[in-house]
């Protein structure tokens, strides 16, 4: 367990740096960016303390905000995701007992994980763009940009998951 916490702290830092220094500047087709750092929240084990998930989500979002100078935007969106995640775990998790498992293609099954990730990532991205615009006037643009970025993020997540699941089998 001690090693686990260390590896989570390590991945937290890696996600923040990767997002802040690389992914925020991809600007695919003009202005579509992936927000891969949400994978940190998706990978938190099921049955994890809900308060802790929310606080971690808030801190993760705030760290990203410090990089992009958008104080509160990523924090608010990631917090929403942290709030929803345990509920989604309840719906999609294959096990009834409270044993901790890390959500992924292997543990959840490919289809279930795709549904689970899509719902959470879409919720995060729509919240992110709504907070970023900070108005409901531009709803159509918020939805359009949100969906474009969601597809990009999900593509990256699924590629990473694919290699993770393969690696686990090889072990």
């Amino acid at each position, binding site marked *: 367990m001690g090693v686990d916490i260390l590896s989570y702290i390590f991945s937290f830092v890696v996600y923040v740096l990767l997002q802040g220094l690389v992914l925020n500047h991809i600007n695919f087709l003009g202005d579509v960016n992936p927000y891969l750092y949400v994978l940190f929240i998706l990978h938190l084990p099921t049955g994890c303390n809900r308060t802790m998930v929310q606080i971690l989500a808030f801190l993760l979002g705030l760290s990203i905000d410090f*990089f992009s*100078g958008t104080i509160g935007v990523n924090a608010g969106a990631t917090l929403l995701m942290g709030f929803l995640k345990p509920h989604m775990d309840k719906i999609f998790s294959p096990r009834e007992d409270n044993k901790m498992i890390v959500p992924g293609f292997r543990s959840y099954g490919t289809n279930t994980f795709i549904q689970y990730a899509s719902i959470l990532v879409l919720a995060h991205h729509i919240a992110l763009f709504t907070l970023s615009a900070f108005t409901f006037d531009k709803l159509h643009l918020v939805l359009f940009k949100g969906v474009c970025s969601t597809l990009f993020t999900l593509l990256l997540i699924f590629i990473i998951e694919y290699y993770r699941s393969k690696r686990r089998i090889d072990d």
Partner: protein
Amino acid sequence: MNTLLQFIRKFSNLILFLLLELVCLILVARFNVYQGFQVNTTCGSVIGGMNSVRTDVNQYFSLTEQNQMLAEHNSRLQGEIRRLESRLLQIENDTNYLKRKAFADEKKYTFHTARVVNVRRDNFKNIITIDKGEADGIRQDMGVISSNGVVGIVSGVTEHFSLVLPIINIDSKTSSIIKGKKGTGIISWSGGDIRKASMEQVPNYINVAEGDTVETSGYSTIFPAGINIGRVESFEKGNDDFYEITVRLSQDYSSLLFVDVIDFGYSAELQELNSKIIKEDNK
């Protein structure tokens, strides 16, 4: 009291979520882009330093492109010099012209070249950070251009960095004119495609055509007249007496590396004059 405690315990996660979300909303509302920018580019701060390093690394990868651009810019300027030289030859006999020209030069605009450190382009409030600040003579409300045309307006200055509000920010408004047609209007961006902006308040008795050049009007001290903004892509007559014009921007925000900040020497004086007029009006 006991039931209240039980209630809090039962809904502790929901309460925590709502509280933190409220904090976020307050942060978003309170920290506008400029304060956010100060948080992330304050000199010596870790993140500001890392962003600079990232830009340095990126610039290495685009050295060829940059050379190409500078060479093009150079040749354009060479051409300009030749054109001006020949024009000067033509009019050298007109001493009055030279006198007027000297006067104009005196109050003319000076330029500070700056490097683009960061372009935040992932949402509605796009922001550009450049590596010149107060110490280099940059002040609030100076115009920023590149060899492609207008970039934006300086809207936040720290010691060594400045923040530029580009045309592609939903808060940006730039006074503009359709070249040769006297049709003035306001350029603004609606939040969609970053290659297009809309031009409003152009009266519809003016004969607009697709492909017309849109440039700065020179009615403010921010930009001199005649700096390229873009071309009319499409237009239609709106409900009122104004056109709704879509402009294809000449500025390519995805390859912006160097910009020029325009320093209009007399802007303080002119502002003082304007504020006097406003005071007179208020009396």
